[in-house]
């Protein structure tokens, strides 16, 4: 079930799209437009009881809490995001 054809690897810095690129609704609003780092690569997953067809490769993206919230604790939020929502973060955007 897992694909070898994945765009990102663990540690890659990524940005989540602001707009819905394909119609898959399962990206929560609070991470849209936010920067994170790939924390896990899941690839293509089958979940026939949940939805039809197979979505694009799935990643767990780690966000600093302060990136997605006004709270400044040194904690983190890990969210599962499909590939089409992600873009590579260019060096100058990382700060």
């Amino acid at each position, binding site marked *: 079930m897992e694909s070898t054809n994945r765009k990102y690897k663990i540690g890659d810095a990524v940005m989540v799209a602001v707009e819905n690129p394909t119609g898959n609704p*399962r990206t929560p609003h609070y991470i849209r437009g936010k920067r994170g780092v790939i924390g896990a690569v899941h690839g293509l*997953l089958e979940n026939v*009881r949940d939805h039809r067809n197979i979505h694009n490769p*799935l990643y*767990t993206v780690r966000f600093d809490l302060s990136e997605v919230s006004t709270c400044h604790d040194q*904690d983190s*939020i890990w969210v*599962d995001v499909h590939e089409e929502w992600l873009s590579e973060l260019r060096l100058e955007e990382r700060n």
Partner: protein
Amino acid sequence: MSGKHDHKAFEGHMHDFEAHIRAVEEDLEYYRAKRFEPRIIYLIRRGVVTFSDLLKARVALKRNNQFFKPRKPQGKNIEARVRYLEEWLDAYVKGIALVSARAVEAMDMVTEDNRKERGDYDDFFKIQKKEHHGTLEERMVNLEQDLKDYQGLLEVFVQALIKRGWSTREQLQQRWQQLHEERPWAGGVIVAKAWTDPAFKQALLSTGREALREMGVHQGKVGKLVVVENTDKVHNVIVCTLCSCYPYDILGDTPWWYKHESYRTKIVQNPRACVRDMFGLEVPASKEVQVYDSTSDVRYFVLPQRPAGTEGMSEEELAKLVTVDSLIGAGYALEPLQQKKAEKLGATPEAPRVRPD
């Protein structure tokens, strides 16, 4: 949700009637507005049943035709009445599972259909939940009436399904029996084994369901399973901010607060404050809180740390220390003394209900 009485580590304590009633109120509205009524609407939209079918079924329904047999509380004291409401809710939830299974087969439904229909992505579709007020007594009386009304609709819906030929009484009775035999709670034995068997723990953390298959525990079937380990440096917490995804096929029914808007919002805004205010859990500054938001095809649970003072305990004894809360990160596994105390108060780790999906 406000104040510390909303949820406590030992929610099963029967002496806290308020907490029990709150849990029934929240769950009842959740199942009605999120699981049952959106499904009826979905099926009406597609002509599987019609409003007229429901009306006719209501008229034709005779007492001896009723699928769900009403029960009576075992006593008049408050504890007996609370248990009665809880059992009734349980029957209602199982009833929804029963009709959902038929609907799913008849219509080839998937969970995602229901999410859309119930407004997870669009407030426009949301069915209003009822708010609860008054004294404990008033709330209990209201709950009895609501349960009666809601189960009435469920009963009528079952009759309509039979009448329209989507199911037979025999099929439904067989499924009803199965629903009472299914007990998906395997959290305790899994964690206890991971605490005592390092090779199993490694396999569990790296392969998820695969390790469960080897262990002989039913491994569930919804999505990929990922188990995240609590350590001296990391405290993990699980949420689904989009709906309420949860590995129910392994851990059983979802606790009411996990599905509550308040938890789902606050845990990703200020995790430390959220677990402190809602569960009385102080996570030490030496630990990073990592919140996992299960937004897609992965289902998570937490491997809690083994409590102090448990050296030499058997797997069977260890399994009793594992609470539902500790698998979500809303609590720690119980220390042996806490567990003894909880057991005395009748607060064994719950055997959660079967969820209708």
